[in-house]
């Protein structure tokens, strides 16, 4: 109907000049989406979009495991409102456009109540406008770019944001490592990397340090020697590489090969065992900021690790922990909400306060972000070792 109006309007513009001749009655505003009519099934569908294949597959799989664990526990405890929960996962092949596609499918075809995902900020940014438009709440477990939740009031996250993460690493590099000159190598194909690099540069400069060079790559490249050679000339003490594990591993190796001696630093995108497989000895001694450390002795964390190990046979990384947290926040909100319509669920999620998640206490602020401490980890003997905690 709207298009008819448009076409008639265009024709009228073309034939009779652009004034007057208002098109026929305006289209009836879109049918109300509130659709509170409860689906007459005995399960509640939770949608998940994740990179199960492609360059960041390790992220998607960890997150999926975390979510599966949370849902399994919730179902064992009787489900929500007398119904069982079911997760429907779509793979986005680590591509934003596929993430958008998957979100559309989850909402229009499967009619999920809430969407969980994605890890990479670029992908979450592709999903958010769709969830917002269709008024389905979306919780991203681990997208740290601030723009994600700025899309609208249906978009939430259970992790800290990049202005904080960038600050943490800049502060650590300046105060603890005493670096004066740092170079940056960022992935221009990821919103996460670009955003984090920008924050780091600003904070580090504010603290009196100097950014001596900024180079870029695109995720999926396999030869980084040209950029590293250009960086090497600057004699930086550290190189900040806010990228994803699969590229970082290769970058570290080639840096070593070229005789780059600077200390590598990064963010939560490094967090996967694949990093050690790809990077080998070359990533030893690097520092990263992250959401949680598996060495945290608190019972919540250790309990989660035991359960996760029993089910999946590996130590959960922070993506798994955040996936678990995001599903728990969603489930808790479903329990509290009067019904499962989009607006009701949104309000319930927004009220989340002091929720004890595995990766720290979650209180959502008025910008729908979680405010949480970050940890700094050091790569030692092929795994991440805890170094320090930085509070916001």
């Amino acid at each position, binding site marked *: 109907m709207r298009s008819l109006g448009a*076409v008639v309007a265009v024709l009228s513009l073309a034939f009779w000049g652009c004034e007057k001749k208002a098109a026929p009655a305006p289209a009836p505003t879109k049918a109300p989406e509130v659709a509170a009519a409860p689906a007459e099934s005995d399960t509640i569908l939770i949608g998940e979009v994740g990179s199960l294949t492609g360059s960041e597959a390790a992220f998607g799989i960890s997150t999926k495991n975390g979510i599966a664990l949370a849902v399994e526990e919730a179902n064992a405890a009787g489900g929500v409102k007398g119904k069982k929960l079911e997760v429907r996962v779509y793979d986005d092949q680590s591509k934003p456009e596929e993430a958008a596609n998957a979100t559309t499918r989850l909402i229009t075809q499967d009619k999920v109540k809430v969407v969980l995902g994605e890890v990479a900020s670029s992908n979450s940014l592709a999903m958010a406008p769709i969830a917002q438009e269709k008024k389905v709440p979306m919780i991203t477990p681990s997208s740290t770019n601030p723009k994600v939740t700025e899309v609208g009031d249906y978009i939430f996250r259970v992790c800290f944001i990049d202005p904080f993460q960038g600050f943490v690493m800049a502060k650590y590099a300046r105060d603890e490592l005493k670096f004066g000159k740092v170079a940056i190598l960022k992935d221009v194909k990821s919103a996460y990397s670009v955003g984090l690099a920008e924050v780091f540069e600003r904070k580090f400069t504010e603290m009196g340090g100097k950014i001596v060079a900024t180079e870029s790559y695109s995720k999926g490249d396999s030869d980084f020697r040209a950029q590293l050679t250009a960086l090497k000339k600057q004699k930086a003490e550290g190189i900040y590489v806010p990228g994803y594990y699969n590229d970082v591993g290769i970058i570290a190796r080639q840096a070593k090969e070229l005789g780059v001696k600077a200390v590598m630093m990064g963010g939560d995108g490094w967090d996967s065992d694949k990093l050690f497989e790809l990077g080998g000895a070359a990533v030893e001694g690097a520092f990263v900021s992250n959401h949680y450390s598996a060495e945290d002795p608190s019972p919540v964390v250790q309990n989660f690790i035991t359960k996760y190990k029993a089910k999946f046979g590996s130590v959960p990384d922070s993506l798994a922990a955040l996936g678990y947290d995001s599903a728990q926040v969603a489930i808790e909100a479903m329990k509290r909400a009067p019904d499962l319509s989009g607006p009701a669920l949104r309000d319930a999620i927004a009220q989340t306060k002091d929720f004890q998640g595995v990766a720290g206490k979650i209180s959502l602020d008025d910008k729908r972000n979680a405010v949480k401490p970050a940890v700094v980890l050091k790569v030692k003997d092929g795994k991440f070792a805890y170094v320090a905690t930085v509070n916001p």
Partner: protein
Amino acid sequence: MLRSLTPVAIAIAVLALVQVLLNTFEMEFVSVLAMKVGISVILAVSLNIINGMTGQFSIGHAGFMAVGAYTASALTLTLADYRLSFLPPALSDQVYFVLALLVGGAAAALAGFLVGLPSLRLRGDYLAIVTLGFGEIIRVVVQNSPSLGGSLGLNNVPGYTTVAMVWFWAFVVVLLAFRLSQSPHGRALWAIREDEVAAEAMGVDTTGYKVRAFVVSSFFAGVAGGLFTHYLRIATPAKFDFMLSMEVVVMVVAGGLGSTTGAATAAIFLTLLPEGLRTLFRSVGPEDGSWADKVDQVRMPIYGLLLVIIMLTRPQGIFGRHEVWDRWLKPKKKPVPA
């Protein structure tokens, strides 16, 4: 004039009715499918003008799609804050959208002209590689334009695309392709396809005709790009890569190089098939949906094999250069030049 406007008027009426029905019954998923299919049809039919009718093998269609997509998206994003005061907001948006699509199409057509003029002097396989190269260069240029969001692309593109809008354009391109193929202009294209040297000897300005065909094809690729980004709500350079071009090529080749209805049929079929399979596997496949997830991954290798098999068994494609109904209409149908 009246003769050429009647079908358009009928189409608009029918599409409007369909849109009203879809909105009333809230058939969101059907709408999504219909939009996807329609965009594929526009792409396939427009590429067929080059690859089928003119016999020039372009594998850079995604590049022109990108030009249109980015131009249209940038325009609607800039205009999003304004509205025509004498129209209700929704309608004003659609007016902007049509405007953006036309500008996007024009930009793509211009790109097609700039690319076509030098490269259409090349023949056969070299032309194919050069169109691929241009497609990639367009992508890299977009990637390096901070105003277009660089590699991250444009987010939050308004979701203006509607089923009626998509199918209106699909209708226009199909109608145009038919009229073109039966016009003197179209005959020149067919002549170039059959034997370029002979056509030139007969006085056909081959380069001129090829460039014009390229421009028309690019225009609709640009429109399809605009429709696509306003459906997906994001424009990223990575989407408009070689793979997307190849998907369209597969549709054209499978449908039959030179058959408009063939290309459209193949586009509909190849777009619906993965969706259908996915739904099927959800209901009958293993519980965890692993088969359904595989559908998207298996699609590309199967397209590859499909190309090989079609070339080996039926190189002219399923319909050849015939239209779907030629089998029944052949005896009496004698196209009258306009």
